[in-house]
């Protein structure tokens, strides 16, 4: 049963610490998204990659957030330094898209981050 895998599932960290979240997309999917979900804002797109190339990271605070995809099976989202307002659930999602079609996006179970 193919699924998007995220680690860690939960993390509590102190303000100022570095946080790295990892995602393994579904094999064969060429598009990977990072979303952040909070009660106030709902699901916000932070960044996404297609064929490992970053296409849009305009939703991401550039001074502290970075997203990379070192290979087709791993995407990372890093926060350095973390702040309490970064507390949220971070979802990775993947799908298969081409220049003319877009399909269903499947979500991982999320990384629940609390910054104290």
């Amino acid at each position, binding site marked *: 049963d193919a699924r998007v895998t995220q680690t860690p599932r939960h993390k509590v960290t102190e303000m100022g610490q570095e946080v790295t979240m990892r995602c393994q997309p579904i094999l064969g999917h060429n598009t990977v998204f990072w979303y952040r979900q909070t009660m106030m*804002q709902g*699901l916000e*797109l932070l960044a996404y990659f297609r064929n490992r190339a970053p296409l849009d990271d305009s939703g991401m605070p550039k001074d502290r957030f970075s997203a990379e995809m070192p290979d087709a099976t791993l995407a990372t989202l890093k926060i350095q330094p973390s702040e309490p307002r970064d507390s949220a659930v971070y979802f990775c999602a993947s799908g298969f898209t081409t220049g003319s*079609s*877009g399909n*269903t*996006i499947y979500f991982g179970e999320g990384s629940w981050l609390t910054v104290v």
Partner: protein
Amino acid sequence: EDKVVQSPLSLVVHEGDTVTLNCSYEVTNFRSLLWYKQEKKAPTFLFMLTSSGIEKKSGRLSSILDKKELFSILNITATQTGDSAIYLCAVGKFSGAGSYQLTFGKGTKLSVIP
């Protein structure tokens, strides 16, 4: 700016009731509209709609898209307590460089009470 607006924001119904959830959108380069159900964890996929007027159905759930009026509805008949969840509407669009992304509404929180 792209917008996806869901209504109502929350809803409480009794088991057996029928509910209709709404999603309206303003998106350039529209490609598809998707419905997800989110319980405690990740959003799980329900439907993807790309054509107007064609109803998609799965058990007690059904959905339809109106591309002229820019909205979709999700119907749930004979609701059960297991239908309690947040229902998310997302619109898929093409943006620069042939890329495809989803913009989400804030969701409708449905509570079904016995």
